[in-house]
């Protein structure tokens, strides 16, 4: 074996070791979800933790399903995530269009205020936001007022617009040829038509990026829904986890629940990993 193949082999060995480091908790999660509690705890102190050995079954899945309304939690997460992502893509790209292609009074100030919000960590405004939504009116007739707390809209509306999404669209729109906009205007298109028929069709990659970033934020929401939802009918998957830590803790069921809520995201990620990674990379491009 010559030196070159040996160094290549060493490189792969190192890469594989590091890969194991990143992958082992996930393997542990899935394998453990198949084992009864007693065996799970015994195995977790040896390498058997990573092997589906001994008594394996899907029992944990069915009992987790009985303990909490998993279907409901997943449905809630999907509703909240989907509506937020779609509304966000629409409103943020439209605002970015306005910032890039239109001249209006106060634009510079408005834009710099929006970009300044990027440095405010959400956790620092969570409590005032909670008080604020508590006071806000919501649709309803007199005597039959529906509030904000414990609902879908409290999880959706505050999260639709954010500085990062607008910023990503602005970066992308800036590089599009302005002649297209001019040409469409000469042809008599309204500004909204220029946006929806000329710019949006050209911005596919940027929409994918923004959608993935928003999806990750929304699906993994924890603190905000924890504060604002009380009933099972509106709680998302991450808050649903709490139900497993009340009364007797059954670790096998917890592992089954974690697998149910994580594996779809991982499959989604693995099938679109190029787009995922490209979208993270684009947040690092400084404008």
């Amino acid at each position: 074996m010559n030196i070159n193949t040996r160094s290549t082999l060493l490189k792969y060995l190192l890469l594989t070791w590091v890969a194991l480091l990143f992958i082992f908790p996930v393997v542990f999660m899935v394998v453990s979800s198949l084992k009864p509690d007693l065996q799970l705890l015994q195995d977790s102190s040896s390498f058997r933790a990573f092997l589906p050995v001994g008594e394996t079954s899907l029992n944990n899945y069915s009992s987790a399903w009985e303990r909490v309304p998993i279907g409901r939690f997943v449905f809630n997460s999907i509703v909240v995530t989907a509506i937020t992502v779609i509304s966000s893509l629409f409103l943020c790209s439209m605002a970015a269009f306005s910032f890039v292609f239109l001249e209006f009074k106060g634009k510079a100030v408005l834009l710099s205020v929006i970009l300044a919000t990027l440095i405010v960590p959400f956790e620092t405004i969570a409590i005032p936001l909670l008080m604020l939504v508590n006071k806000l009116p919501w649709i309803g007739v007199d005597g039959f007022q529906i509030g904000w707390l414990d609902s879908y809209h409290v999880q959706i509306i505050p999260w639709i617009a954010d500085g990062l999404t607008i910023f990503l669209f602005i970066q992308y729109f800036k590089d599009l040829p302005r002649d297209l906009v001019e040409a469409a205007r000469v042809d008599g298109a309204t500004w909204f038509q220029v946006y929806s028929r000329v710019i949006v069709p050209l911005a596919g990659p940027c929409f994918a990026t923004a959608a993935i970033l928003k999806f990750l934020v929304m699906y993994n929401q924890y603190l905000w829904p924890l504060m604002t939802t009380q009933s099972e009918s509106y709680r998302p998957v991450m808050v649903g986890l709490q139900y497993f830590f009340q009364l007797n803790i059954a670790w096998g069921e917890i592992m089954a629940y974690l697998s149910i809520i994580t594996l779809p995201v991982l499959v989604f990620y693995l099938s679109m990993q190029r787009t995922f990674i490209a979208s993270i990379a684009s947040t690092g491009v400084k404008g």
Partner: protein
Amino acid sequence: MANSKPKNQNKVGWLMALPASGLIFLFLIVPFLLAFWFSFTNQRLISPNPTEFVGWSNFSSLIGVGTLTVEPEKDAEGKTVIKPNGDIQYPRMRKFTRNNPDYEHLKGMREWFSFPLSNDRKWVVLARDKLFMKALVNTILFVLIVAPLQGAFALLLALMINQKLPGINIFRTIYFMPVVISIVVVSILWRFIYDGENGLLNAMLSFFSFGLFEPVDWLGNSSTALGSIMVMSIWQGVGFHMIIWLSGLQTISGSLYEAAALEGATRWQTFRYVTWPGLKNTAVLIMVVITMQAFALFAQVDVMTRGGPVDSTQTLVFQSVQRGYEKQDIAGGSAIAVVLFLIVLSISLIQRFLTRDRT
């Protein structure tokens, strides 16, 4: 035409920017301003009394510290009193902090930590809000340790991934994978890894040390809990910054590397004089992003330790949420949020200063 154009666009421009801007204003900027306002009041979630303006008192009760040098207790013969366990007996702190007109500035404070001085004297640092101080110190420790380590590991991974090897994308995909998993899920999984009785980490350490390693309850021990959370946070976040380093690496022109190879540069020289200078802006960006994420440390603590044991994993955000939400002390929680925001703001101003020439 040129004159009337901007005027025509005023209406449509605002119309298209308004929905998103309005939402940001209402749900981000207003709460942000409210946090500032609340931090100067005695606001509670539900209170029979009206909210009052209290000035700086929330802040002074957070960050008030004082020091004191204490002599050991002497008995009637002037000898130092020794406790049964061999320690020196010092006067109780409450002698100074309660109703003592000579030490008015220490009123209501509690002992935070102390250093021994010569002649058995002791230098005591007292804090008005010991819990906040612990949270502040833990958060700063977390940032100071996690930011450079995570940045460095991410760069190492990026350099490994940037090699031209068949199948390298598989490794890139795996290294990035923890980023897409919820931090809540990750925290629960790592509770198993860190468990004191059946934990994976203890099992592995014992295996590799041939049984010499004594099991540790990583999260249940005040000297290891914060470190354990740091390691897990780095594990989860490092893939994100690896990708940002990677996109920085790929902007460095290949001809520079060719030139370096022609000059006979060693691998280290190539990194030192070609790669690193090309990554300077990326480096500043990554440090700022990691620092901001590290300051917002919350979910890991909430799921894994709830601030314990003995407050060793308290953080600013966790304290802010606990006071504001669980204890319904909106004013106290907001004051901590404001302190946190001011820290983050100064860091991003420093970043601006560092990158001022290059943009």
